[in-house]
């Protein structure tokens, strides 16, 4: 793992992986959405609104995957002091927050025709809203930590601890529909089993793969951005001290 700690080696990999992830991800995700709109038949109970599934569910998965990435990166940063781990955590925050916001917005739009309301304060929706606030807090904290590090402080560790503590919310989101009564349906896809018909399941899995590749490409691009900023700042500091 420490072999990838070298920023030069990481940049060599990211230069070809990032465009590959973004282009293939956009083709797969947009293709799956188009297929969902044109080809997939209406659902017996939900009618045409079932098509919202193909954007809402991948966004929900990526909202949670984003924070899982932050938690793992935080652990690696705190335990092994991997130099790229803090950058990876920070790079996952904005796309994670974006997909969480997309999930909340599309879920609310889906709720209106199916539940008769835009929003309910139940376990699933509330814990997902908490996830969005956690992302916003993490983004603010990591920005402050970057300024603090320039001054020689240890703000990055506080951000990493926040990333680990916030991970408590992920199993709460996952189990919320089992633990508490909710208008939200229970899990449709569990290990090795699916309650979703194949007609909807395959486009959903392709959309999820596509959006995951887009997410990966965005994280790599943001890591390149953060690395370039760090390298430029370091060079400017050396010039100022010379």
């Amino acid at each position, binding site marked *: 793992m420490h072999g990838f700690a070298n920023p030069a080696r990481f940049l060599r990999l990211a230069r070809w992986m990032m465009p590959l992830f973004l282009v293939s991800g956009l083709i797969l995700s947009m293709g799956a959405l188009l297929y969902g709109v044109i080809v997939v038949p209406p659902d017996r109970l939900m009618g045409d609104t079932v*098509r919202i599934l193909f954007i809402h569910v991948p966004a929900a998965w990526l909202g949670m995957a984003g924070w899982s990435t932050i938690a793992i990166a935080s652990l690696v940063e705190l335990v092994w002091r991997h130099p790229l781990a803090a950058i990876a955590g920070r790079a996952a925050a904005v796309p994670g927050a974006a997909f969480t916001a997309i999930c909340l917005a599309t879920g609310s739009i889906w709720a209106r025709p199916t539940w*008769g309301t835009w929003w309910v304060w139940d376990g699933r929706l509330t814990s997902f809203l908490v996830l969005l606030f956690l992302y916003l807090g993490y983004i603010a904290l990591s920005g402050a930590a970057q300024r603090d590090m320039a001054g020689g402080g240890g703000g990055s560790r506080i951000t990493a601890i926040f990333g680990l503590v916030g991970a408590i919310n992920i199993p709460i989101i996952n189990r919320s529909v089992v633990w508490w009564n909710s208008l939200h349906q229970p899990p449709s896809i569990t290990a090795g089993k699916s309650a979703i018909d194949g007609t909807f399941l395959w486009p959903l899995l392709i959309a999820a793969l596509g959006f995951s590749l887009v997410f990966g490409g965005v994280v790599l691009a943001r890591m390149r951005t953060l690395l370039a900023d760090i390298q430029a700042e370091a060079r400017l500091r050396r010039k100022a001290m010379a």
Partner: protein
Amino acid sequence: MREGLEQWDYVAAALTIGVVGTLLLVGWTLVAMVRAERRRDKVRGK
């Protein structure tokens, strides 16, 4: 459907938010990356 709601309006709104949000995220990320790498190269004197 109940209340005479037009389902396709909701589908269109949700998909628009998803697609536009994703494309904005990708576009903004790429612009920020190009700008940061250009600034680094300028500082390095390349």
